[in-house]
């Protein structure tokens, strides 16, 4: 299925900043390179999370192994090895969750639904925009494509000072689109938006229920079924009217297609995992990634988190995997493991990781994740993402890419939360790029060094702790 690339220029013409009075990127674009950029490139920080991690040994293969898809961007990334998050371990709760909560916060979780501290992007946001972001902008944009849902730390990766989620997760491309383009609220009233999102989920579940009674498994007879079908039609009408886009403009951006994969409750049947094809997964993710990137390009958001597959994700993936025209692997998790349910999920490859073995399936999964993360990063690296200073959005922003663990075998917490993959962008020349570096430091110190580099005085981690700066990452 071909993905309709959303034409940024067409969008700029229509939904145009004229309604919100923001400086147009377009203007910045057309100004000649010779003109010294008096306008500062905005400070941006995003957390990109991918689930299940890359076992530390696989990170040592440079770009020949699972990191191959990052190669085209290698000169814009700093890949950091041997970053450990052991301090994030909480006894009794599994490391997937702890590691996930620790990603970007460097603290152990504070309960089921809270992090242990703010995430990097939020700390930077507070410092650089103490009075809030320009009106009409989404203060923090949180999106993702994922399934495993027990405990929000698995799939939300942006947290406030008070350890609550920094924004509502937009898990369907349409939701994200609506959040960015459909419900621009000049007063920046975030709670209204949140409530609307929650109401939406209520309505979604109601629709699911009615759909069931009109479907093939319905216990109803013909007459009753048609009655319910009528009711469902009315609900759809209601949906349209209640949640229609505010801006009705003939050139208005087209609503992205409906999500085809599972969401909400059915997406996580109690941890038993879902069946999904590579095509379905990447189609949805790329649509999400495109929209998120678009939101950044149009300067509708400068902070937030994007998640590709949750921490401890459970999917049974099928489909042929090709990269650069070569077939790398055929995904068929359940059959290849000769198991069903949760035992047949790709998650199990991580449990079975053995340095001495080939780990082909795991490698293929990790490689694929890197490919999809790279897809998003590339969206911010094209010619249509060049900013006033001649650099791309990717180069100018601080994008932190991380995950929940450095090993998946659950038999050694130290190992599990050590060597957690990290990669960052240069943030407009603040940090080194084009290297794979053996950092050998705690995540909290790495993050605090990043904060220092971003001119942020606040620090993550325990209040009294003295930061050990990791100067090697500074440019």
């Amino acid at each position, binding site marked *: 299925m071909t993905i309709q690339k959303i034409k940024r220029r067409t969008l700029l013409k229509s939904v145009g900043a004229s309604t919100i009075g923001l400086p147009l990127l377009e203007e910045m674009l057309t100004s000649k390179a010779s003109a010294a950029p008096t306008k500062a490139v905005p400070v941006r920080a995003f957390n990109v999370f991918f689930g299940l991690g890359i076992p530390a040994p696989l990170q040592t293969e440079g770009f020949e192994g699972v990191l191959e898809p990052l190669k085209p961007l290698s000169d814009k990334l700093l890949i950091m090895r041997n970053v450990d998050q052991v301090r994030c371990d909480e006894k009794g709760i599994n490391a997937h969750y702890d590691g996930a909560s620790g990603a970007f916060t460097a603290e152990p979780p504070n309960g089921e639904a809270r992090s242990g501290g703010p995430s990097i992007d939020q700390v930077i946001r507070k410092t650089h925009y103490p009075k809030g972001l320009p009106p009409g902008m989404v203060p923090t944009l949180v999106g993702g494509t994922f399934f495993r849902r027990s405990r929000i730390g698995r799939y939300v990766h942006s947290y406030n000072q008070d350890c609550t989620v920094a924004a509502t997760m937009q898990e369907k491309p349409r939701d994200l689109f609506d959040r960015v383009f459909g419900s621009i609220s000049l007063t920046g009233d975030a709670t209204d938006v949140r409530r609307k999102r929650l109401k939406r989920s209520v309505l979604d579940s*109601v629709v699911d229920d009615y759909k069931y009674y009109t479907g093939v498994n319905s216990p109803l007879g013909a007459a009753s079924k048609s009655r319910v079908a009528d009711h469902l039609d009315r609900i759809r009408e209601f949906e349209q009217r209640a949640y229609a886009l505010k801006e009705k403009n003939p050139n208005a951006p087209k609503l992205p297609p409906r999500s085809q994969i599972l969401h909400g409750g059915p997406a996580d049947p109690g941890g038993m995992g879902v069946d999904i094809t590579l095509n379905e997964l990447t189609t949805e993710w790329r649509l999400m990634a495109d929209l998120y990137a678009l939101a950044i390009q149009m300067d509708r958001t400068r902070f937030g988190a994007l998640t590709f597959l949750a921490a401890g994700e459970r999917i049974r993936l099928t489909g042929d995997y090709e990269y650069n025209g070569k077939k790398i692997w055929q995904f068929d998790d359940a059959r290849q493991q000769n198991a069903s349910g949760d035992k047949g999920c790709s998650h199990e490859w991580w449990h079975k990781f053995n340095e001495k073995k080939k780990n082909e399936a795991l490698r293929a999964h990790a490689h694929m994740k890197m490919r999809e993360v790279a897809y998003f990063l590339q969206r911010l690296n094209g010619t249509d993402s060049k900013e006033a200073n001649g650099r791309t959005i990717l180069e100018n922003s601080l994008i932190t890419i991380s995950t929940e663990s450095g090993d998946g075998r659950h038999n050694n917490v130290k190992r599990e939360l050590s060597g957690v993959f990290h990669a960052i962008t240069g943030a407009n020349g603040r940090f080194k790029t084009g290297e794979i570096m053996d950092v050998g430091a705690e995540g909290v110190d790495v993050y605090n060094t990043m904060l220092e580099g971003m001119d942020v005085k606040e620090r993550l981690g325990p209040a009294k702790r003295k930061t050990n700066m990791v100067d090697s990452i500074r440019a």
Partner: protein
Amino acid sequence: MTTTSRRFVRRKRVLSFLLLIFVLPGSLNAAVPRVVRGLQALYTFDSEHGTTIRDQSGVGQPLDLKIEKPAAVQWEGGVLVVGSSTKILSSAPARKIVNAVKRTNSLTVEAWIKPANDRQKGPARIVSLSANSSQRNVTLGQEGKRYDVRLRSTSTSTNGIPSTLTPNNLAKTALTHVVFTRDALGTARIYLNGKQQASQKVAGKLSNWDKDFRLILSNEITGDRPWLGEFHLVAIFSRALTANEIKQNFQAGTAVKPNNAPSKESLAAATARHVFETRIAPLLARNCLDCHDSSSKKGQLDLSRKAAALAGGESGKVIVPGKAGESLLWEQIKSGEMPPEGQSLTNQEKTLFRQWIDNGAVWSIDLIDPAVYVHDSREGAAWLQRLTISEYIETVRSTVGVDIAKEARELLPPDLRADGFSNTAYNLNVDLKHVEIYARLAEIIVDRMDVLKFAGRFSKSQKLSTDDTMRQFIAEMGKWLLRGPLDDREVTTYSGIATTVAGAGGNYQEAVRFMIEAMLQSPRFIYRIENQRGDGTAWPVGEYELASRMSYIIWGGPPDQELMRAAGAGELQDRTVVKKQIQRMLKDPRAVDRSLMFLSEWLNLGRLRNLRPDPKKFPNWNEELALDMRQETLAFFNEIVWKQNRPLADLLHAQFTYATPQLAAHYGLKPKGPGLVRYDLSSVPARGGLLTQGSILTIGGDEASMVTRGLFILHGVLRGVVKDPPPGLDITPVPSMPGLSQRRIAEQRIANVSCSGCHLKFEPLAFGLEKFDGLGAFHERDEHGNQLRDDGEILFPGAAKPLAYQSSAALMNLLAESPRVQESITWKVAQFALGRPLVAADARLIDQIHKAAQKGGGTYSSLITAIVLSDLVQMTRTETTKSEAYE
């Protein structure tokens, strides 16, 4: 099979079942009868030869078994001897058994057998519902010297392990009555020869039974667990027989066998009757009886009564049974001469008549009542019942304790009347406004709830998680809110809301809020969802479905905790328990409210709000009077039905009423104290009974139209049928003048040949009310000075001659004592209870209900009890799907 032949087969089975019911008791001698309640499949092995073992239960589609290797067995006088390994299995999955057991969560497997030896193991499969040696729903087997029963439930394996075993040395090579039961509460028992030999807890629900397993005797489907021995009888029930019932079946022995499938002749007779009652009778009613019923009798031919029809008219016999060619009726129909007006019969309908006469002109009901055929089967179809506004209000109040009456009545679109009631299911559709308002009301309701307190009833934890605790909580709360257990899909959907709330930084309270909001808009809340899929026959309704039917019929609201408990424990399978519950429920004030709602709808009391009498004609009118009239009728009903527990028929002529001083004055009674007070009417002969109350008398409008009043009595009280006036007729009421009273005007209409046919049927009914004006006040003369009378005639539907009455009191007495009126009240109450108009297929059942109710005194309570205990409520007509129907 084509649809018609499939329907035919279905009817055949239904009829043979009916025949079984009627024939069975007669065929028994002094021997003990077998217990049959809950029977799903029955094999008696009295074929004597052949490879097919017929299912004699008469329930649903028969599940016949086939012997795979005929050489392995021998027939010996009612016994099947299995000498070597073979399989005796059904060709299709045992759907009816699986579905029934899943619903009732209990079962009995019964067998009269004689093992060939006490060494066979495996266990050797005696009776099994399974797929192979590791996948089963239930298997009764022999493991050497013991009997071993494996049962699949949500807490045993898919192989039914751990099994229930008898003690050792009990499996002997002698004829043994082996019975396995598991009740809805999870206790499994094995009885041998009437004595309990094993008891074990087999917990969990049987809801995980596989619907694709076949029934097999004497082996596994895979052929690797043979059992050798004698089969005398095998039966499967969808309930756990009690110890006494098992003793009864043990005493009944194997010699007592139910009759074989009815003979060809009796089947043919039953079919002919069915054809007459559902095809011929409606045709006669719609096309012939206008002119050829007992009273109109054109050409002296009365086609409404069997004897009269067969006797013929002035042209002699019109029907010669078996010879359509010699039947005048057929000639007239064939040539199109009859019916003389209106639409002639279609070719199909004509053929039906011919076939019917040729097949012997079987006439199985004494009187053809056109009222029975007014509604065709489409309206009797199983339409999903949406909660009416009052049911919605009561459901919210009962489940979450919030009073949403004001907002619900203000905001929701009103429920419209159809066929005389506003709870008629096919008319309760949903528009955009409904969806919008249900969403809004859900929000308001949750705002008013103490959400944490409510949640606390179902779970101690207040943690926002999506683990098992949350799922368990959702299942418990959902079961209460949605009137029955949730399945996994539903639990998953609602827990998805919890995660979304978590993903938005919400807390437990918020999550519960939104889940409740979702549940309040769920189809399971807004509608009374029931299983309607099956094999096309009538199935017993599920226990929670029955609980809801009972509570909505009796209370107009959801089941209370006690009823839910009884449903969950499987108690509602037992008629005596159901009776007790009905009695308990009738004592609740909600039963009174519901009955008053029925009255309000039947008599359309809502009309009173909108009365606008001409102030010139009625200068003393005020709106209060209309409200008082409504109160009068409700209080009157309340006293008859609830305070005095009198027969419903007394509503027509009881000599008292309730009135405010204002209303009393209006009626010409001496006003007593303030407020609504009881007035004894024994000395006011003209008044007493519903028809003499303002709420009914105002039906005719300012001019007290005899047509309107008469039609009300005809339709609402007598259940009569009359055609609409022909088009193009000026039906403006003719005003009275000096010398021309309304009665005279009516008599003129009746004298007119083109009007009398229909008007004779209803206008004289209103003659007895002539002295009551358009607002129900009593006068001897009308405003023009015309002398008013109150004598007249009443032609009861189906009667040959009208009955005369001399006064309105006499009219009321005639009505009260009329079996026709009593039946009509039963029909009305039943219609309101079911939420649909009654159709021809219901006629027999309603008749039984009416008789049972009359036996109980003809009171509202006895009627409601009879309705709830009848098959109209206990059973549900199923529709087939491709996957359910097996030929």
